């Protein structure tokens, strides 16, 4: 019976991995700026989620994994204080298209923000979490979220390209025209 329960639990978790991975991967990429680092971060976060799977409510599993992901990233930064890790990215064909340029520009801009500001910006403006939810995920106060968001936005705003050299999507470009 125990074995069957374990098997069912693993099957449910495997389904969860397949469903949650794309969303987690996008968040991780915005946080790390590297597809390889994002993949490793997501994998590590899913492993931790598996270890806690028996106490994770299924309807909150994605939020739980995202919380693990963001804080795993935090832990990594904290542990490696003063240390710089060099990601070894797999060779990929260079995509010489404007989408790749925009993508890289935005990630480069995000990378200029201090880590906490970047996390807050990603959670607030990509994951669309409320200030309270962002505070809960990061384990900080709502005031700290507001402050980090404000400073993060100011930093991005100052460096953001003008509309004529926009980062925007084609749809937004169309509306600008």
């Amino acid at each position, binding site marked *: 019976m125990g074995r069957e329960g374990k098997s069912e639990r*693993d099957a449910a978790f495997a389904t969860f991995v397949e469903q949650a991975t794309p969303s987690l991967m996008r968040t991780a*990429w915005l946080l790390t700026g590297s597809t390889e680092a994002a*993949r490793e971060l997501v994998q590590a976060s899913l492993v931790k989620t*598996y270890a806690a799977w028996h106490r994770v409510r299924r309807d909150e599993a994605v939020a739980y994994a995202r919380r693990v992901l963001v804080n795993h990233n935090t832990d990594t930064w904290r542990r490696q204080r003063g240390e710089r890790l060099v990601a070894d990215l797999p060779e*990929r064909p260079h995509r010489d298209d404007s989408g790749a340029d925009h993508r890289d520009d*935005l990630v480069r801009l995000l990378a200029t923000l201090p880590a906490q500001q970047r996390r807050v910006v990603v959670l607030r403006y990509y994951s669309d979490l409320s200030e309270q939810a962002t505070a809960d995920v990061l384990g900080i106060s709502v005031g700290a979220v507001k402050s980090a968001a404000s400073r993060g936005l100011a930093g991005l705003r100052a460096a953001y390209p003008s509309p004529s050299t926009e980062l925007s999507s084609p749809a937004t470009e169309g509306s600008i025209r």
Partner: protein
Amino acid sequence: MNDLFEDQLRTDLHTAAGQPAYGSIDPAEVIGEGRRVVRRRHRLQALGAAAAVAVIGVAGFLATDPGRTTTAPPAHRSTTAPMNRALLTLEGAGEARFLAERPAGSDEVRIMDAAGTDRPVLARLRVPDGGRPLAYTALTVRDSLVGVLSGGSQLLQVGTDGVGEETGYRSDLQPLGDDLVAFAVQFDQVGRLETLSRILWADATGMVWDTNTPLLSARFAPAGTSTLPQLLWVDSANGIWGTSDGVGGGVTERPLETWPQNSMGAFEPAGSKHPGRGTFDITGLLPFSEASGLTGTWAPGVTVVSPLQGQPLTSGDRINLTAFHAVVTTDGELPEPLLRSITFTGPDGKQHGHRYPAGSRR
């Protein structure tokens, strides 16, 4: 208040995040790793449970032996052997102070509360084989991990599997006679010890251990302004590697076969002899055993203080790696990677090379 910029940022973040080809995650691989984590946690929890039994046993002993309660400090106990003592202080909020005491040659270390004058015994540790060759012995005392290591050892890192919480901890390590060191660790958050997942320490020879398991490790002599040897270790069971100089360090959860590279260092502050100059230990792994003749090309502005050198890390047929190390200086911040490419002679006698792509994360 939402403004146009915030709306544009939202749109751009979603557009940008949707574009890369991320690759997939294999659920079976995640579940396999997860099972290892659970097994490891259970093993450490079992050790903690055993420690709790030891503490309870001591408490019971205290309760039934009036002569050993608060009126008779153990330090006054008559003994012919000289007593070795180490005072361990965990500063900060909720400061904890422990006194480790061991009669010379004894296989027992008593852990006492050093905060008051009574010094009740909190726990007793058995030191196998008189500490030689010692691995690691520790137990949980008042939400702290207190234990001993062989003489000359240093504590490198204490890791947890905790989720969404601070991982900060305070530690102290002091000599306990000639052949042992005593240590205490307390996490910033109560209860965090339950998620203990790794205790990395290095013995006097530079060999790195995780609790009682020796890890493959390389020790590189200090160079440049550094006075501390650089230790590189590989935990193949958990697919991680890391570096430490005994003061700082980090763990890299990165596939061991993917040419990982790491730089660790600091910039000299204003008012120093060379303000702004950075000195970095460059470490990494090559997916070849017995790589020799290592040469590197470096980012413009890098000055090599100690050239690349390698040490083999091999374990039977399972692990065949070469650890490498160099020390460089920079005048100010430079874009990563500092080591741009590396060439070496492989075990097949052929020349191999690897170019490290631009990009870094901290």
